[in-house]
Structures are given as C-alpha cells and as structure tokens.
C-alpha cells in the first residue's frame, strides 16, 4: 500500500510542475487579456490609464520567466495567487466550487456504474441475444450524442413536460437539482462501462478457471458470483478509474448548461475572461483529482488482486 502511495507521489510533483508550465505558456500567448475581456457588449471600454494600472496590479508586464518563477514559488507554499476577476485567492474560488463539483462527478459516476456495469453484465451473459444487442445499442447510443444536446433534451422532458425535476441550478444542492446534470454527465461513462464490462465478462467467462468452476458442478449464477464478478471487476476498474478521473474535466459542458456551480464552469468562464490564475487553479485541481482517483484505483487493485499485493 505504502509503496504504491510513495511511488505515486513521486510522480505527481513533476507532473504538476509540467502542467503549471504548460498552462502558463499557453496563456501567455493567448490573444486578448483579462482587461479586454471586461468590455462586454461594448460596455465599459477601459481607458488606457486604468488598463495600465490593472496590468501593473496583476503583474502582467513582468517578464514571463519572472512571473512563472513567482507563481511556482507561491505554489510551493500552497498559494495559487489571486483571481484577476474577483481579486480573491484562487484557493477560495476553487474551494467554493469543489463540493458541488465533487457531488456532480460522484453522482454521475454512480449513475454510470449502477446502470452501466449491470447492463454490460446482462449483455455478456447472453452474448448474441436480443438482450445483448439491445443493451449495447442503448450503450453506444449514449456515446453518440453531444452532451449539451442530451442535457437540453433531459431538461425538456423531465422539467418542462413531466414537471418531475427542476430544470437547472444548484438549489439546496440536493438530489432533485443534481439528478438531471448527473445523468447528462453520466451517460457517456455509463456507455463505456457497459461496453467494457461486457468485454471483460466475456473474457472471464472463457477463462480456464471458469471451466474448472463448472467442472465442480457449480450452477451458472454461482459461477458468476463466485468466480466471474471479481475477475471481471479487475478489468472494469481500470475503465472506471480513467472515466472517473477525467469526469471533472468533462463536466465543463454540463455545468455550463445546467448552471451548476462546479469547477468546470468556473474554468470555462475563466478561460474566456483570461483570468489566468483561476484557470491555472482549476486545471491543477482537475489534474489532482485525476491523479487522486487513479491512486485510489491503484489501491483498489491492491485490495482486489492478490497478485499485485504480493508482487
């Protein structure tokens, strides 16, 4: 366990450093600036004097290297700088968004697992059957729709037509507001999981030890629960990890559509307003989340697969 963690951490530092550098570089060549972004709809053209003071305040006139050095220096002590837009510390900005973001991602992943894994299982147990074909077409269809479109359709159906759920927003952060965005976000990992699970189960069902289990006189349900599930899970868990880890970044579109106050919508907004410190912070968080989930997955492997535990 510990070695896995240590090895992970050793990898995280250079990864984070590289990401900080990449984002810094990308945004230093980005046209437009926070100041030009303030002029929306022709309103509030900023006059040159104010612009100059703003640039100074934000340190935009310093050489890139110097700015980068400063940023990294602050980063080392956990200071992500201040947002250009709100002037608040980026850590606070992100802190406000973290919980809603996590909630959405967790709910979406839960949806994906609860629907996707059984769907793949059922399909795999009767390969070539109508059930198999139907569940796979359903799954692949879920992969073939633009997310914002799916989200809009869900809004129309569940909010406007059926009046079952609120159409947008965070509300009290409860389940009613969470459901629609979570489904919109969860459909594509659900589809991928269904597909992976099906392949994994088929794979395991053809394994020698399943034949052994059958030769023991085990009923098919027992074969599945005693010997297939766990082994299939090892294969599925990689997909779960990759999907889960990247979900916070994928949530961008859904959060924007549903006005969900997550990190993704903050990120997009910050990109368009050239609020570089906020962008940096969001991307760092998303990457950290990805790394954290994958570390968890590694640990899960250790727990599930004895071959890794003793290796």
């Amino acid at each position, binding site marked *: 366990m510990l070695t896995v963690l240590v090895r992970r951490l050793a990898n995280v530092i250079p990864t984070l450093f590289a990401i900080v550098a990449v984002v810094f570089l990308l945004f230093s060549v980005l*046209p*437009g*600036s926070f*100041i*030009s*972004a*303030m*002029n*929306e*709809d*022709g*309103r*509030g*053209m*900023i*006059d*040159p*004097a*104010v612009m*100059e*003071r*703003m*640039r*100074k*305040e934000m340190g935009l006139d310093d050489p890139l290297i110097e700015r980068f050095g400063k940023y990294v220096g602050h980063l080392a002590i956990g200071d992500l700088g201040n947002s250009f*837009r*709100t*002037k*608040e510390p980026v850590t*606070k*900005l992100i802190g*406000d*968004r973290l919980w*809603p973001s996590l909630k959405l991602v967790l709910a979406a992943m839960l949806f994906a697992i609860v629907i996707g894994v059984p769907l793949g299982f059922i399909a795999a147990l009767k390969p070539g059957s109508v059930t198999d074909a139907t569940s796979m077409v359903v799954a692949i269809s879920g992969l073939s729709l633009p997310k914002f479109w799916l989200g*809009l359709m869900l*809004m*129309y159906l569940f*909010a*406007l037509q059926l*009046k079952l759920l*609120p*159409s*947008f*927003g*965070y509300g009290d952060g409860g389940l009613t507001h969470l459901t629609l965005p979570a489904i919109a976000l969860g459909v594509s990992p659900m589809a991928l999981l269904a597909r992976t699970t099906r392949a994994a189960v088929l794979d395991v069902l053809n394994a020698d030890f399943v034949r052994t289990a059958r030769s023991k006189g085990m009923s098919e349900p027992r074969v599945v629960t005693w010997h297939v599930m766990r082994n299939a899970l090892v294969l599925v868990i990689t997909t779960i990890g990759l999907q889960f880890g990247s979900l916070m970044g994928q949530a961008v579109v859904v*959060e*924007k*559509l*549903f*006005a*969900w*106050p*997550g990190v993704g*919508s*903050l990120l*997009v*907004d910050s990109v*368009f*307003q*050239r609020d570089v410190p906020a962008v940096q912070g969001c991307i760092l968080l998303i990457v950290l989340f990805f790394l954290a989930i994958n570390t968890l997955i590694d640990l899960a492997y250790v727990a599930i697969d004895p071959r890794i535990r003793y290796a």
Partner: protein
Amino acid sequence: MRTIGLAIAALALFVGMAAEAQQTQTPRKGGTIRMTGPYGASMGSLDPHATSRAQDGIVSLAIHRPLYSWDSTNNKVVLELATSVTPSEDGLVYTFKLRDDIFFHNGRKMTADDVIYSFTRIMDSTKGYPSARYVRVIKGAVEVEKGQAKEISGLKKIDDFTLEMTLTDRVNPGYYFFQNNTAIVPKEEVEKGNFAANPVGLGPFVFKEHIPGSRVVLERNPKFYKAGKPYADRMILQIMSEAPARDVAFRNKEIDTSILGPAQYVAYRADPELSKGILEVAEMFTRALTFNTEHKPFQDKRVRQAINHAIDTDLIIKRLVKDKAYRATSWLPSSSPAYDKALKPYAYDPDKAKALLKAAGYPDGFEFELTTSQNESWGLPIVEAILPMLAKVGIKAKPKLVEVTVLTDVALKGEFQAYIGSNLTGPDSLATLRCFYSKTPRSACRVTLFSSPEFDKVFEAAAAEVNPAKQLELIAKANAILYDEAPVWFFNYNKAVLAYQPWIHGLQANATEITHQYVEDVWVDERSPVK
C-alpha cells in the same frame, strides 16, 4: 429644438407605458424576486468598484447605490443619495445636500466622508478600478491616481451632509455618478478586508449568500431610506448564461425574469400567455460595422456610404434580428436627447452603392477583412447575411472570426480593416461623440481613426456651450455630420427584451441596461410559486 423635445416626450411616454401599466394595483409586501443573470456563468466581483460588468451591476444596484440614479420613466439621471445639488455659475463646482436618513447595512449613517472615501478608493494608484474613468472628472482625482496626492482636491466636506465637488470640465456629474461602480461604500467594512465576499452597502437589499457560479441571495433592508420600500422580502439572482436553459426554466416558472434573444422574442410574442409579460426598451447600444479609415478604400467617404446603401439593413433587422432592434439612424441612440428623428436612414440601393463605388475609383469593388465575434445579434450571423449583399455590388468581405474577448483588443489596437460590434452610446451623448473627435487617441475609443474638421468644429462648439438647449442642438448637428460621413455601417440600436412572470410588477424599462432594476420598486403578487 421643439422637435427634439417632442421626440423625448414621445419616447418617454412609450418607454414608460409598460412600467406604468403595472402600477395600478397596490404593491404587495413580501415574496421573493427571482431574477436571472444572463451574462456569463459567474459573477465577477460583488465589490461594486472592482467591476464594470453588467451582470455584477444587477446585484450592485440592489446592495449599493451611487450618488445618482437612472430615471427610466424620463430617461435621465436624477439625484439618489442627495436631496439637492447646486451648480456654480461656471458649472464646475457642484454642492450636494446629502440625505441624512441613509444608513449602511451595518447600521451606521452615511455622511459626506463616505462619498469622499469611496471616490478616493476608486482612484487608488495601486489598483485598477474601472470606474476611475468616471471619478477622474473630479478635480485632483488624476493626481491621486498617479500617486501624487493622497486626497482628491476637488472633493470638500462642508459638513456631514454637505459636499462640494469641483469638476475638471463642464459636464453633468450625473452621467458619471449614476454608474453602479461609483457606489458609496462604508470605509470600516471595506477595511475589514474581503469586501467582495461580504459586501455591505446602503441599498434596498442586504447581502445574504453567494454561491459562486449559481446564485446570489439578498434580503430586505428594513432601514432603507425610501419609506415602505423595498416590497419584496428576498431577491435571488440566478446565474444562467445558457439561453435555452433559461427558456425552459422560465416556462417552468422557476425564474421570474429572463432576457430574450431574437428567436425567443418571436416565440414569446406569439404565445398568448407569455406575450403578456414582455418588457421592451431601446437600449443605448449602437450596433455597427466599424471601418478602419487607415485601410485605403475606407478613407473615401463614398465607399463608406456605398456600403451603407448596399446592405438591406431593414431586411436583416426584420428577418434575422426578428425586430428585436431599432434601425440605427446615426450614432446616437433613440434614447439620447440629441437623437434626431428626422434623419432618414440610408436607403437600400445597390445601384447607388455601385455608382458611389465607381465614383470613388472602385468600379469593380474591392476586398476587405471583416473581423467578427460569434455574437448572435452583432456577430457572425449578421456578417453571413451581409456577405451576399456586399458581393452584389462587387465588394468581397472575408470574415475573420475572433472571440468577443479578443474583439476589444483588436479594436483598440487598430488590428482590423473593419469589425462588427456593439457600442455603448449613452447616456452622455457628448462623451459618446468624443470617440470621433480627432484629438481622442485610438486607444481611448477612436478606433476608426476617423477625422473630419467639420465634425471637430461642431463638437468643440458643443463641448464649450453652456446653454443646455443650445448644446443639445450642437450635439445633434455633430451627430448628423457623423451620419453623412458614415465612419461605420449604421446597423441598429438594441431593443432589450425582458420576459417576466405575471406575478411580477414594477419592473422599469431601463434604457442603460434592462437587467439593471431598482428592485425596491419591484413587487410580487400572491400568484408567485415561492413564498
């Protein structure tokens, strides 16, 4: 003169009607107003001085108040925090008698010191507060901005409720100090730090909660200085940048107001129920295709006029903008007191356009790059519509797509041949026209680099004129010159449309920005689904 006066009266009547019709019932106390913030997926800053965004203005106007406010019924600036103001003979010194019944949300009474503090804060030399451009009109403000002085010399406290303000130019300070981001803030709260997270003001509503990216919740200020107001107990601003999502939420009665785009404007107008709750106003934005007169063909006035003739502006407004705009006749919008109704729009006349081009030495037309954003009302869709029209007279426009963010940069740096955009053109008409005055630097706003001695002469005269009526006349004249010179293709003045639920009353048709509501006048009747 008379015609202008009549025009204003007619306009005021028209604009005021929607609001008027709602005032017949007695306002109900209590309830919750649920407005929407359509501009972007988050708030910028709740510190009123730190932002110039329209979205932030919605909240700012509820929590804070500047010296003046906008009277939507009469389309003019009026005193808000003062009972009277007396200008000096030379029009440079204004003496304000402040109200003595104004309390900040922390219970302290507002005095002249707070006004001085607020304006001094805006000029802070280490911070780039966007509203510095307004306060700079006060004498001595620039020195503070440059760090050469600690206090603004033009602000003098006579007593707690009397303030003397000396200006640098002969202008109406109301145009400057009705802006949300010149609001008066309490020093002690600002100095606690983190003012943006815990804003304290003197407006009708008290800050309660901000869930970034989702909503701002405000509660009734029981000690508001206007007796009996505000009516509602709570105000919620839901942040919703996605128009289709807003549409669903509005139809689902989850929000009380919603800004409409052209497509939804048509749909709502056609709906028997929804059409009852539509508030329209001619906003002070002029949408135009701006020519860079450094680019050779556009140096010739005839070319610029030719383009104005070549585009079937009315058709575009009717079909593409779905009548959610008023045809622009010159630069100043219809809500400006200097607006001249008599100006005839450029007729759609491709033949005349061709003739003008020929006269200008371009019988076969020419090619230019047209920079545009993706904005649905003043961006790419419009460009797509004018391309074939220009092609008909031999002009080939090559669209170049940029983000809205980049558009401003492109404009101010002059890195364009022509661009299409939206321009704030009010309420100070003189300041608006300054953008065509040849002594204004490009980086300030003279993006066309347009210069005309004739215009300069009239503009200078207008700026120097003491008599308001005569000044208005001169401004109108300058505006007319501009129209003939055509430094831009005059497209339209925005018609802002706000849909509201039937239980919402007292909304104002604010021509400076329709989402900016003086919420103390808004009330909710018992049909509202929220308590």
